């Protein structure tokens, strides 16, 4: 049996740059950067999603936000989980026949947007908002609700999204640190490719901007100290850490055959997926990037087998802005691509929207879709003295050289994931 071709036929999100492809594209064109001082640790910059606090208090909510805001059990989802749910609703609506791109309008029935047996794969980060749960010991446990635990369980977002969209197929919660979202996308891709599903909803959401959430990174000394209004500087010699973000993004993956048959709007095609583990340090990447490279090669080999005959034209690097990650990743990219006649353009989207942890890969894919529609590759913000002279870092806005590229995410614990995509016009 020939493997099925897999396309993205629905996309939605809630990111520091906006809540739709239209908004994110506009933010990219305007060069708007979302960095602001943390409310809890004002010496650090963060990239928040608006509105901060209760999402339901958005000044002009779209239909997805009204559904979430009107669901009184939403408080059982922590903020990262709510971002995943909101993104999932928007992606399902975007995939529906007749929906406008940009969250406008309102479905007649949310539970009829996707077939009820559609599997859901949801990439979730941990709940770290300890001070947001004041009843925890040694506090007064009488302040804890009966089901406070739900906020701390990783699968609550998954259960919530299944409920709101009326999904009754397989649902899984995925975590692979900062490579979680790409792993979820890769899993969804494989299921459709192998003919196990026609359609899969992949959602991701994470927020580490709470007092304790940010403290996790601050104590590990991975955060940039450039200034509370500044973004990180991926691949710059002066880089000093990443900037924490929050966000959600979700996609409806579908076989090309099914998407074409129903006349769906196609955003992109997924051509390959590779994933490996360093099996080394619990935090630092393998110094030679051996297993990250293996993941890139595996994803590219699968894409070539699926018919990719040129490129890649671009790479969306993990590019956190930390000393170690960017050194290892730059060396890896040099080994793989520097000697090509036309080396791929290297983007580092975290320079424009921060690091959304478990949701990073999905948020970055959404931004790429928006950039493709806007017609320009976003430059790496803050890049003044590149750490490599052999790589084609995007230094100023340039048109895409082509539609073929790869997304990389390399997580804490050495979990590596790479996705090869073809952006569609």
């Amino acid at each position, binding site marked *: 049996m020939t493997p099925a071709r897999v396309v993205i036929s629905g996309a939605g999100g809630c990111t520091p740059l906006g809540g739709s492809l239209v908004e994110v594209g506009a933010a990219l064109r305007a060069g708007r950067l979302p960095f602001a001082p943390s409310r809890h640790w004002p010496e650090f910059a963060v990239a928040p999603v608006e509105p901060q606090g209760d999402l339901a208090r958005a000044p002009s909510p779209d239909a997805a936000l009204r559904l979430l805001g009107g669901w*009184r*059990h939403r408080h059982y989802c922590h903020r990262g989980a709510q971002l995943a749910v909101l993104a999932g609703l928007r992606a399902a609506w975007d995939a529906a026949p007749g929906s406008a791109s940009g969250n406008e309008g309102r479905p007649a029935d949310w539970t009829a947007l996707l077939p009820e047996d559609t599997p859901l794969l949801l990439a979730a980060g941990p709940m770290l908002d300890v001070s947001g749960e004041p009843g925890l010991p040694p506090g007064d446990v*009488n302040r804890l*609700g*009966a*089901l406070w635990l739900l906020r701390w369980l990783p699968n609550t977002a998954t259960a919530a999204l299944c409920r709101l969209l009326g999904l009754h197929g397989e649902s899984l919660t995925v975590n692979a640190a900062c490579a979680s979202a790409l792993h979820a996308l890769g899993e969804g891709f494989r299921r459709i490719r192998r003919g196990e599903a026609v359609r899969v909803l992949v959602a991701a959401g994470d927020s580490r901007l709470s007092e304790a959430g940010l403290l996790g990174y601050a104590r590990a000394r991975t955060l940039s100290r450039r200034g509370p209004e500044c973004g990180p500087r991926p691949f710059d010699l002066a880089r000093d850490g990443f900037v924490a973000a929050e966000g959600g993004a979700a996609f409806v993956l579908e076989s090309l055959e099914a998407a074409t048959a129903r006349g769906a709007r196609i955003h992109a095609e997924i051509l390959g997926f590779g994933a490996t583990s360093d099996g080394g340090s619990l935090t630092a990447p393998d110094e030679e990037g051996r297993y990250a490279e293996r993941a890139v090669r595996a994803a590219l080999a699968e894409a070539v087998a699926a018919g990719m005959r040129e490129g890649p034209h671009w790479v969306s690097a993990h590019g956190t802005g930390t000393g170690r990650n960017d050194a290892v990743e730059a060396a890896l990219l040099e080994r793989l691509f520097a000697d090509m006649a036309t080396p791929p353009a290297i983007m580092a989207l975290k320079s424009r929207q921060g690091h959304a942890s478990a949701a990073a890969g999905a948020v970055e894919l959404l931004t790429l879709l928006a950039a493709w529609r806007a017609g320009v590759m976003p430059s790496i913000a803050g890049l003044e003295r590149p750490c490599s002279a052999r790589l084609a870092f995007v230094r100023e806005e340039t048109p895409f050289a082509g539609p073929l590229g790869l997304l990389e995410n390399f997580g804490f614990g050495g979990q590596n994931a790479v996705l090869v995509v073809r952006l569609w016009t």
Partner: protein
Amino acid sequence: MTLSRDEALQRVIDCVAEIFERDAAELHARTRLMADLPCESIDLLEISIRLGVAFGISVDDEAAFLRSLRLLADEGAAALARAYPHLSEQRREELLCRREGDGLSPLTLGDLADYAVWASRG
């Protein structure tokens, strides 16, 4: 100081209003928890624990939520009186007569207030 029925009812209403995101003024003693509000099992758990804290009592869900009302009603008035000593005789009589109703639990916020007053006496 003994807890008055009015005071107990107000506390029950405040607690239920918060859980269902309703205005407390919309709720009253005859509001039926399961029939008039979109009550799910998850909500009963929260109500139980909140009433426990609000009144400093240990809530017996079986009695407070009239869980076995149908079975007990079949057994008759004496069984009902043994299981729900917090309800007035008049209320128990009403429950006995109404058991063939719409199938939804007739439990009201007033019943919860009566339970709280009774349980607070120790």
